[in-house]
């Protein structure tokens, strides 16, 4: 518990110093007081994820994840621009159901955000107990659960599994 509070305090303090940018005594004192308040208020929320910070291999997978994500995001934008300027709106939209093996809340949040910024998909709702995601897909190829999972989720689930679980 004390380690979680120390981590939150360090993160908030550095964030405050970047935002205020000039190193004067008043800024440092106000930042320290605010950091202590925030660390006592929010340490319950981050208590579950504290064990993730220890393994250094997770950071390497995270740095591998960023360029993959950026490339998919760029492809998504070009795809969206093509659909907008085409005269006959080439799409078959629908909401499909996909299955995921991730369990923790942080991993599910990252998976939902990644799917929203990916080509052709947008997360609508998460069912955490059953491990299902409801995804709005702009070009529905199949409405079967297993095949849709193969098309949409697999690529990122493999990386996020190594980062967060």
């Amino acid at each position, binding site marked *: 518990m004390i380690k979680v509070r120390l981590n939150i305090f360090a993160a908030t303090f550095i964030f405050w110093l970047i935002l205020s940018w000039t190193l004067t005594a008043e800024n440092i004192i106000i930042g320290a007081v605010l950091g202590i308040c925030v660390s006592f208020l929010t340490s319950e929320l981050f208590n579950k994820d504290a064990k993730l910070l220890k393994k250094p291999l997770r950071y390497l997978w995270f740095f591998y994840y960023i360029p993959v994500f950026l490339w998919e995001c760029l492809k998504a934008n070009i795809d969206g621009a093509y659909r907008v300027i085409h005269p006959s709106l080439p799409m078959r*939209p629908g909401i499909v159901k996909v299955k995921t093996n991730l369990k923790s809340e942080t991993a599910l949040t990252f998976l939902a*955000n990644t799917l*929203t910024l990916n080509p052709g998909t947008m*997360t609508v709702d998460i069912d955490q107990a059953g491990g299902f995601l409801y995804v709005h897909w702009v070009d529905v190829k199949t409405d079967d659960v297993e095949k849709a999972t193969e098309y949409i989720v697999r690529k990122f689930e493999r990386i996020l599994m190594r980062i967060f679980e």
Partner: protein
Amino acid sequence: MNSINEIIAYIFIAIGLAFDFFGCLGLVRFPDIYNRLHSSIKCVTLGTSSILFGLFLYKGFTHTGVKALLCIGFLVLTAPVSAHVLARSAHKSGVKLWEKSVCDKYAEDKK
């Protein structure tokens, strides 16, 4: 236009501007709320991030530039969440999908 940094910054700002424009055009053209959110949230998020990155290249590691980098991180983390919240609340408040849609598993499972 003096240095190479400023030229690259202008190129990034122009790319971001084009994506912003296509996102807003999608907001006007597409037929229902899910497709509108779908197209515009992607294009506008990457476009505004690109504009902010251009600002960072223009200013370098100063006060403004580092804050622009922070703003990019904040935007990429929060914009998909707001799109998700709006889509779910639209579905729960009873907005129908487009009539040419293929399937709606969410409405089937909710009953």
